[in-house]
């Protein structure tokens, strides 16, 4: 797969993007947490943060941000923590992330079925 490619990447660059931090609160964001910009990019802002603010003018899932910026998911989580803590983005958390039972509620599944049948 793409392991060789990323292994060849200069790790200093990832270090720079996250200003040296290596961990975000793992539970703060899900892969499909939808991020919405609450402000416009500021002049001189780190380019990745500015890109996120532009991208999230419409709700955008964390995983789509990672794909678009070509950064690992965990790096994007760190960037999003920054933006979220300073109120520059808001987050729409998936309802399923809050549910600790292994099975989704029937009423959610019914809506999924209706949506799929329309495909």
């Amino acid at each position: 797969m793409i392991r060789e490619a990323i292994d060849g990447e200069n790790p200093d660059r990832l270090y720079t993007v996250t200003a040296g931090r290596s961990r975000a609160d793992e539970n703060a964001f899900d892969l499909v947490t939808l991020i919405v910009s609450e402000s416009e990019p500021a002049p001189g802002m780190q380019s990745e943060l500015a890109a996120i603010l532009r991208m999230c003018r419409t709700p955008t899932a964390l995983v789509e941000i990672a794909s678009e910026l070509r950064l690992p998911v965990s790096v994007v989580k760190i960037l999003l923590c920054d933006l979220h803590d300073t109120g520059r983005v808001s987050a729409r958390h998936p309802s399923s992330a809050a549910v600790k039972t292994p099975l989704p509620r029937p009423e959610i599944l019914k809506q999924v079925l209706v949506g799929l049948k329309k495909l």
Partner: protein
Amino acid sequence: MDSRSSELAGGQLGGGQLLSPAPPRASLPLADSITDALKIVIVGGFGVGKTTMVRAVSEIRPLSTEETMTGAGIGIDDTGGVREKNTTTVAFDFGRITLNERMVLYLFGAPGQERFWFLWDRLFAGTLGAVVLVDTRRVADSWYAIDRLEHHGMPFIVARNNFGEPEHTLPQLRDALSLSDDIPLVDCDARQRSSSKSVLISLVNHLYTLSTAQETSP
């Protein structure tokens, strides 16, 4: 398109280009009214057609991304052969389906290989359910995925990606997979939108049965 070559192409796109300028967005923006995102994971070996299935039903062309597991994680998990490495990377593809004005469903195509499972909880906690996509020529590849899903308590169905003359009947395949009778096993052609759609519907029907049984049990 051949599933194997498409997965190769996806893999080559994925890495090694960190921080390069973002290409123009190929994806359709989500509606502002969407508040809830759901996940379904399609698990299967290399070249079995996961990306093909995602592409068949997704409203955006499949995208790929990756997650890294750091040295700290490797110390905790038994990663065997990759122990000497500082990080290991798992790549996965995804697409999406807008279900209604409020809900969107993300479909992830995930590799079934061993190192992937160390990232399951981090990436796929809260997933509705999974589809194990089986290649009839490499049935044994699916055993590990089925075992791991059971271990994680993740409900799933099994779909045989079958676009030729089937060598075996579904009951024979069920036997080969040691699959219990209450887990649905279906045939599909991952290249066909209607076929891939009905696999997803089979999964959600199965989840619905499990979920209502759970609610009505004392």
